């Protein structure tokens, strides 16, 4: 038998039907649902008299629209449109009989944090959601990717997706990371290397010592941004770190089923000699804490760098860089550490997990954020929030001057009350620095949680290695 990649193995285990031209019906093990991309899909089912084929494999949670301030049960905290969208999910979850974590449930949070936390996401599964950051679940060695609303309806009705197989790409991070360098820096550095279109048409498998050394939280951060590199999915082969995270979670297998699952999971790795269509290798020790300067996640530089000039680029990127620099209000040649910020956002499906908050606490413990700084920390789920409170992290944050919020997507995409105003500049641990992403004419610099914490203290983009 010819050697297979991890992607090949998961794909092969989920083919329900394959046509002669390779068009495949891929069976979906877990379907995660949120309120923004699902209402039209449920409406489609209603109009055609269709049911949800596998409600027991379908899990819904509102996250994009929900306010993150205390007292959010008060309906006036949401706009009329947001309220309608959340209510539509409430109604659809009940009517179609799917698993649901409503806004007032302590387990509510960002869909990509709730899924793994509750043990819905397991190695070797196929996982989809009407959300591009579904790539997050690839950290477990699950084939996970975002889909559009028509496909959400397709999965609801048939528990399958019509797919053609992608190509295989290997991203290897060798060696050890230097102090102050995190999973976020890895994933941004990879996008800086490949560009936002570099992964288009591929599924990425991340491997190498620096990846193996990451916790599950770190691995989720890396896979989360595979989509920012253009890849539909990112994968990391499961290992003991994965099993330890999964075991004992509410929906993880137990007893004899756990043993059977483990036997299969241990076969989920890329065989020696398997073919990759593209290989990218970075040395872990070369990766530095990075920041983005522009309005595309590929606009990445080490924090020690300077704002580039449009002439440094070629082709269509010249105009894109000119536009970015103007939008961001920067000057070519300006040191990145001289860029002053007024807002810090720590949270999102990229960096809203307990480990991220521990990293922040380490930087800000016993210190105060810069006067006038608006800094918020938004846990990825109600359970992350509880854990951070139990560990004393929340007290550290409050004492340092941070707002400590309730769980939700918050300022990652500003579909809720948490938004940047025109011209405000934010160091954010989220995933997209697009124009207007965090609010109309708002300016976003993507960074790791530790770097965001450092920026909150100094009021400018800061090399965290100078503070710890």
């Amino acid at each position: 038998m010819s050697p297979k990649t991890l992607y090949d193995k998961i794909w092969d285990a989920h083919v329900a039907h394959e046509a002669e031209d390779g068009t495949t019906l891929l069976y979906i093990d877990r379907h995660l649902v949120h309120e923004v991309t699902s209402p039209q899909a449920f409406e489609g089912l209603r109009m055609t008299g269709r049911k949800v084929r596998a409600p027991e494999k379908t899990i819904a949670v509102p996250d994009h629209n929900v306010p993150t301030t205390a007292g959010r049960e008060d309906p006036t905290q949401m706009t009329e449109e947001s309220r309608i969208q959340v209510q539509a999910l409430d109604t659809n979850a009940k009517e179609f009989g799917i698993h649901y974590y409503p806004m007032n449930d302590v387990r509510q949070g960002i869909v990509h944090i709730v899924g793994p936390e509750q043990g819905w996401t397991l190695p070797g599964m196929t996982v989809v959601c009407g959300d591009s950051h579904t790539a997050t679940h690839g950290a477990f060695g699950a084939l996970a990717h975002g889909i559009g609303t028509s496909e959400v309806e397709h999965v609801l009705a048939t528990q399958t997706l019509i797919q053609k197989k992608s190509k295989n790409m290997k991203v290897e991070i060798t060696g050890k990371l230097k102090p102050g360098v995190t999973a976020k820096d890895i994933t941004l550095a990879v996008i800086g290397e490949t560009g936002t279109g570099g992964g288009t048409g591929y599924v990425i498998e991340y491997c190498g010592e620096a990846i193996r050394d990451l916790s599950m939280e770190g691995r989720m951060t890396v896979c989360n941004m595979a989509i920012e590199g253009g890849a539909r999915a990112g994968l990391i082969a499961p290992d003991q770190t994965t099993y330890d995270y999964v075991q004992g979670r509410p929906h993880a297998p137990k007893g004899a089923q756990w043993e059977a699952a483990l036997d299969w999971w241990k076969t989920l790795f890329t065989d020696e000699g398997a073919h990759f269509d593209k290989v990218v290798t970075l040395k872990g020790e070369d990766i530095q804490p990075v920041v983005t300067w522009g309005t595309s996640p590929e606009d990445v530089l080490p924090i020690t760098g300077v704002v580039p000039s449009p002439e440094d680029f070629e082709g269509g990127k010249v105009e894109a860089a000119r536009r970015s620099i103007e939008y961001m209000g920067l000057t070519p040649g300006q040191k990145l550490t001289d860029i002053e910020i007024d807002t810090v956002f720590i949270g999102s499906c990229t960096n809203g997990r307990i480990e991220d908050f521990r990293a922040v606490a380490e930087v800000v413990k016993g210190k105060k954020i810069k006067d006038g700084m608006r800094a918020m920390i938004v846990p990825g789920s109600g359970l992350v929030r509880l854990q951070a409170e139990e560990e004393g992290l929340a007290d550290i944050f409050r004492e340092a001057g941070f707002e400590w919020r309730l769980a939700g997507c918050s300022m990652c995409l500003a579909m809720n009350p948490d938004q940047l105003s025109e011209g405000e500049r934010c160091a954010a641990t989220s995933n997209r620095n697009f124009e207007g992403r965090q609010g109309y004419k708002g300016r976003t610099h993507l960074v790791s949680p530790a770097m965001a914490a450092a920026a909150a203290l100094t009021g400018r983009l800061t090399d965290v290695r100078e503070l710890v």
Partner: protein
Amino acid sequence: MEKFEKLHGIAAPMPLVNIDTDMIIPKVFLKSIQRTGFGVNLFDEMRYNRDGTEIPDFVLNKPQYRNAEILVAGDNFGCGSSREHAPWAIADFGIKCVISTSFADIFFNNCFKNGILPIVLPQEQVDVLMADAEKGENARMTVDLEAQEITTSDGQVFSFDVDAFKKHCLLEGLDDIGLTMEKAGSIDSFEAQAAQARPWV
């Protein structure tokens, strides 16, 4: 879904690279629970001032491109969020075909579900089409899906690739879910077999 008929129309040039789905339809417009009505907010932040007045320089505000049915765009069009509101907005505006050197995967797939044909061509051919689009409303292109050919206003012909299954669905206006439901037997037997092999799922 509407059938994709042979298209003869105005092409609008948008050479900017990495046009993301937040640019195509900003998040403030994602709160509808309908599929229609997004066209007026297509490219909203590039197209309108904060007071709602039009930005005259924006391509789709120029008189010659207001009725564009084709978009010729820079590399990596549709990157970012999976929001199908992006192709919904494009279709609602009246654009039925987008041409670029590459598209983000999710956006690319979403187009086909909404009767929009995304066409990938090499840079030098996109350059020719971009220049043709710059000529304005008197320069109409023809997109023939059946023949897989684009003809410029001055008669140059470029052929393009398209997945055979997706082409068939677009030409016939077929509903994917209906097609898949015909294979319910295969899904049933897969489910039965998977329940044996991986009962924990």
